[in-house]
């Protein structure tokens, strides 16, 4: 949608989050739920990245990791890396290869200069990674990264006045005096289309759509530059959903906000996002600019996902791709490509080798054995896979 893109705001690299499963005698560690398993993408200033996938694919976990609401098992999220650092990061990750971090408990295969690279990466991470920040720096970052939750009925304290709910972030960050704070709150209420009279009410007096506006006002209070929208409209009716989506677009234009829009509702994602990341069982299967993804989906999963969405037009006759079965458990993901158990175009190689995320064209990346050069996981595939770096992303053609 946009040709010139702003500075990189968040650069997510090889992010993993394994939730331990405890059981047996002495509740020992008996396995992991691999909620997020090696996810990489960039979010630029002022753009919306859509994150889609079915329930249990790790979308929400990625959102929480980006805000450091939970700590990752490994990987980094770099906050506003300067262009030269960004370049250096690209080349480090290029050399390390995509599977550089321990997977399956194994020892990572490193190139000869691996230890030096890791050391350098560590140095950069300690400066820019949000997972290394402490004290005042972290506090500052927390104000810049905000979230709007899915369920407006449980994300607002029923005992607080709307005024106090929206002013709470300001209080925590010691912004302004009590008078200026409430002026700011009134401004915010106006920005999200609520009447300032509503300040003296409790959340239960509002409808779902109005509550979600309060949630947005609260997220905006600290003038963030990035907001995670975790299914902000899935609890709302369509007519109200349109109101919320319009407000979000308006705010983005006014305040140059970047959004991570998490949703399972692809039509909504298409309406709002500039780029889309499709996840399946903790892995990114496809990543592309919105129009490219919706017009030319490449991964069989994306194709099935798009075909499964009911389009409100009865005269349209579409080809249906029906997937078999359910999403497998992320505690025991299938070997090889994680989608091979349900894939309509499955090949023998799919159950053995995990396809790396490779660049197809411009800004379009896909992880599937169907596309040439991704076959065997040899050197060339690695090289292709490493092209999935933000360096390559920058040279995006007009779609």
């Amino acid at each position, binding site marked *: 949608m946009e040709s010139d893109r702003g500075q990189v705001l968040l650069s997510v690299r090889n992010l993993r989050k394994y939730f331990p499963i405890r059981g047996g005698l002495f509740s020992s560690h008996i396995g992991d739920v691999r909620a997020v398993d090696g996810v990489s993408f960039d979010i630029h200033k002022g753009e919306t990245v859509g994150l889609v996938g*079915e*329930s249990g694919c790790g979308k929400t976990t990625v959102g929480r990791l980006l805000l450091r609401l939970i700590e990752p098992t490994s990987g980094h999220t770099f906050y506003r890396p300067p262009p030269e650092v960004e370049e250096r990061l690209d080349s480090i990750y290029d050399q390390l290869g995509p599977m550089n971090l321990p997977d399956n408990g194994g020892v990572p295969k490193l190139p000869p200069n691996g230890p030096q690279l890791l050391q350098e990466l560590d140095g950069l991470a300690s400066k820019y990674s949000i997972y290394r920040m402490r004290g005042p720096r972290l506090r500052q970052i927390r104000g810049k990264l905000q979230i709007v939750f899915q369920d407006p009925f449980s994300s607002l304290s029923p005992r607080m006045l709307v005024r106090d709910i929206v002013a709470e972030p300001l209080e925590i960050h010691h912004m302004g005096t009590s008078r200026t704070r409430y002026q700011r709150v009134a401004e915010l209420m106006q920005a999200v289309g609520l009447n300032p009279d509503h300040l003296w009410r409790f959340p239960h007096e509002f*409808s*779902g*759509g*109005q509550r979600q506006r309060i949630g947005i006002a609260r997220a905006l209070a600290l003038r963030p530059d990035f907001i995670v929208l975790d299914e902000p409209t899935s609890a709302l*009716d*369509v*007519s*109200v*959903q*349109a*109101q919320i*989506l*319009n407000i979000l677009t308006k705010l983005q234009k006014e305040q140059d906000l970047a959004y991570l829009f998490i949703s*399972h509702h*692809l*039509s*909504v994602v*298409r*309406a709002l996002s500039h780029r889309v990341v499709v996840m399946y069982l903790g892995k990114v299967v496809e990543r592309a600019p*919105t*129009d490219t993804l*919706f017009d030319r989906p490449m991964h069989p999963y994306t194709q*099935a*996902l*798009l*075909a*499964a*969405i*009911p*389009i*409100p*037009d*009865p*005269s*349209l006759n579409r080809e*249906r791709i*029906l*997937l078999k*079965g*359910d*999403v497998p458990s992320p505690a025991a993901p299938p070997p090889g490509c994680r989608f091979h158990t349900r894939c309509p175009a499955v090949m023998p190689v799919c159950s053995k080798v995990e396809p790396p995320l490779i660049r197809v064209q411009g800004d379009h990346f896909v992880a599937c054995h169907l596309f040439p050069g991704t076959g065997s996981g040899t050197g060339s595939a690695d090289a292709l896979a490493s092209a999935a770096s933000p360096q390559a992303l920058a040279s995006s053609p007009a779609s």
Partner: protein
Amino acid sequence: MGAAPAEAPVQPDVAAHEREIGNVILDVRNLRTYFFTYDGVVKALDGVSLNVRRGETVGLVGETGCGKSVTAFSITKLIADPPGRIMDGVILYKGANLLWGLDKEAKFKPIPKTNRVKVRRYYHRIKRAQERMNAVRGGGISMIFQEPQSALNPIFAISDQVGEALLLHRGEDIIESILHATPRAPGVEPAIREVVKAARANNSDILAAATEKLAEAANFPSMATQAFYIFRLNWSDPESKVPELRKALDRARLSGLQRSFLHRESKRLGYLRELRAIYLEEMRRGKEQRVARSRVSARSTALALRTLYFSIWGISRNVRRPLNEETFWRTVKLLEGVRIANPVQVARGYPHELSGGMLQRVMIAMALSAEPELLIADEPTTALDVTIQAQILELMRDLKNRIGTAIMLITHDLGVIAEVADRVCVMYAGNIVEVAPVRDLYKHPLHPYSQGLLSSIPRMDQPDKKLESIPGSVPNLIYPPTGCRFHPRCPHAMPICKESRPPMTVEGEGHHVACFLYNGPVWKG
């Protein structure tokens, strides 16, 4: 069907009209359902009229709180009472009024200076009406609920829960098929050999045919399912499964004691069937007075049904075992009918072991166990992921074509409606505002609310479309807006909209709308 209901206008083409009436299995007129709360009376449904014809899919669409689910629950009389009450209306199911005797069930007295109303309920009458409903619920009209996780009982196996529905509605069939089973009939042994041969050939088509033959020889329908699964579970070594199959056949053979028990049951069932036939005959005549006169037989039907239920669960183990076995294998067959890949394991499992999509399939199997004429699906896919939703919708389409069940599909997703429904009713704040064939509605929505609703959905195939939103939100139904309930949010509101309720007018073939913007002839149902 018999004579037209009294409310229908007399039309010149009587034959065509009769055909039309006969085709309508559910005709709801002027349904009003109120909830009596401490804040006041919530007028959830305010004169809803709709009909469902044989074999068609009707979509009921609207926002949260517009009364979609209340409509469904009113039709099956599952409204929690108190606080809810159906106040007024007629629900004709195949010509018989399910709300017969409604006005005698309760008395209402407004409490002065409040919005509240005191309701005096006559529980003996309500109870009797509910008992009458039991014959219709599940058997004639069945329902799929929104959240399969909470609709199934966590402490019973799937086979028990589906089996209960089967026993209640198909008890006669099951008992008869057990009684007629003669497992040691002459053709059985060669049929078993045939099955083993087919299993060794590793061909499921031949195996299915062979098992059917075995079932025929044993005169035991569910034997086919059982044999099929016994062999399919172990392709590699079919011989080892022969003793298992023999055992199953032996188990199906009845002892003299069991036979006499079941004979007694079947006699009772025969009596029951007669009663039910009388009842249905009365219902078919469709006259309320007639039903009133046949109240005695209706009541004894309900009583007999209840005794059947308790007798089936209460009779000695000897009878229960063949019954349970037969029911189990019938359940397996049902589960296979809703395309569950491993029906035996699923039938033995518990709800928590299954995913949402699988549970919804189980619910559908349960709802279809009695081959209902009308299936009410209340947001069947809302709790599911899109890929699973696509599977379930495909399944419902397929079932409709195979069984010919009429479906009333309740959803807020206009995309789902477009894919599945033949006709759509749009609801707003307890009223039906527009009824139209599905293509008409999406091409030319007439009511401003339908127009707003359609332009507020983001469309995947039209990304550049601007999203319009309907200002404001759904009104409070304790103090609903006067006149047309949509007027406070309507872009075309006129003075008259505030004063009176727009009548339903005919604006095209099967296209009705309740709005003052249109002035076609008034629709009379």
